[in-house]
């Protein structure tokens, strides 16, 4: 009655229609059959495990990348921290240097003579002498014999000058001698260096009144150091020594262990006090 072709076309149309009707019904009323729930209950655990595994692997992968990122960030932060610490340290050094230089500048302004600030670049190679090398020389107007001071007191005297460096003999050097006075009663003596960080006040007569704690200042008689600059303070006095004079030990006003900068007084000797006032 119908050809095979017609039957196929009709079956196709029927299938499409049924499908459309099913879809229309299903969209209005979602299926809640027992089989569906059963299937869901069966499949869900696998889905869950699989999903967890996927998530876990995804997490591990992401964590790996995140960790790499964190490690890199950690390295970067460490470097930044080190750089910051280094900057902070340098800043602290600059602050301290600034303080010292301000102090030195204040002292320089209080000096009547022109002066040049110099930095200590090296110390004496021997344990027996106390000289230092400073970074100023003949090019800066330095000459042999000029006095070096700090805001605390007398530091030493230039003994050798090259174009850009000079050798400064500290007052604690065995070769050093500074004409000095006890500030309280004007007892005079010569402050001589020892090889330690201490000096002696030589040629003090046995009858002179010198006590521990007395301030020792430069007398100006040597024509090198300006009068009245602090040299140190008397740390010990013992009776008559082997050479008739009193033995007086002087603790220098300048802390030579921490000495980093000095002022070189540039005035010619004729401008310095030549005799007692």
């Amino acid at each position, binding site marked *: 009655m119908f050809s095979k072709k017609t039957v196929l076309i009709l079956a196709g149309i029927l299938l499409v229609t049924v499908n459309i009707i099913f879809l229309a019904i299903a969209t209005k009323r979602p299926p809640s059959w027992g089989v569906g729930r059963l299937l869901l209950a069966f499949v869900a655990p696998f889905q869950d495990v699989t999903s967890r595994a996927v998530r876990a692997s995804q997490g591990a992968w992401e964590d790996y990348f995140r960790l790499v990122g964190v490690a890199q960030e950690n390295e970067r932060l460490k470097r930044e921290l080190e750089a910051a610490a280094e900057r902070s340290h340098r800043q602290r050094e600059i602050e301290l240097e600034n303080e010292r230089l301000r102090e030195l500048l204040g002292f320089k302004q209080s000096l009547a003579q022109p002066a040049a600030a110099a930095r200590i670049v090296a110390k004496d*190679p021997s344990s027996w002498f106390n000289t230092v090398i400073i970074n100023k020389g003949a090019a800066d107007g330095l000459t042999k014999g000029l006095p070096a001071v700090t805001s605390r007191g007398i530091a030493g005297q230039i003994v050798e000058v090259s174009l850009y460096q000079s*050798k400064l003999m500290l007052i604690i050097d065995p070769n050093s001698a500074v004409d000095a006075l006890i500030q309280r009663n004007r007892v005079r003596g010569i402050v001589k260096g020892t*090889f330690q960080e201490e000096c002696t006040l030589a040629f003090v007569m046995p009858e002179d009144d010198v006590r521990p704690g007395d301030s020792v200042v430069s007398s100006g008689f040597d024509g090198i150091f300006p009068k009245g600059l602090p040299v140190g303070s008397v740390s010990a006095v013992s009776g008559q020594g082997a050479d008739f004079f009193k033995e007086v030990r002087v603790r220098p006003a300048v802390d030579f262990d921490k000495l980093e900068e000095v002022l070189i007084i540039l005035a010619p000797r004729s401008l310095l006090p030549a005799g007692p006032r």
Partner: protein
Amino acid sequence: MRFFWYIGISLALVICRTTLLPYTPVMGNFFDPLLCLVVYLSVFRPLTESIPLLAFLGILMDTLSGGPFGLYLTSYVWLFIGVRLAAAFIRVESPILLVLLMAGGVLLQNLVFLGAMTAFHLTRIGSGDMLRVFIEQVGWVLLAGPPLAVLMRSVERTAAASRRRQAPAE
């Protein structure tokens, strides 16, 4: 070329002694590291090579030091002569003897300095202070000497091997 190496090493040692060690705690009385170089020259190097360098080292140190000029040069020259003489009788290349030679160098240098200071009335140094500085310096020699002696020998062996390689080529 070799002299440039020696000068470079000398400068490094001098900078170490004058700029680094004085600011390092407890190392203020470290011995003169150039003594090691003097011992090395005396033991291992020929006169023609050693004498100009010895003069250079002595003058360099005397220039930097606040002591009378010539103290370092004197101590280096006498140490050099002493070690050369000792080498005629004993095998001074052994590391133990090299350390002893360095200690002897420290003793000689201190004697030269103290002798000069006493002779020129520079200062009166208490025997206690003198002994303390000397003991500290010898202590440093005993600590730093063995590695330095081993270094000296290995430097000399490397130099000798290099000379032997160059000899057939010449």
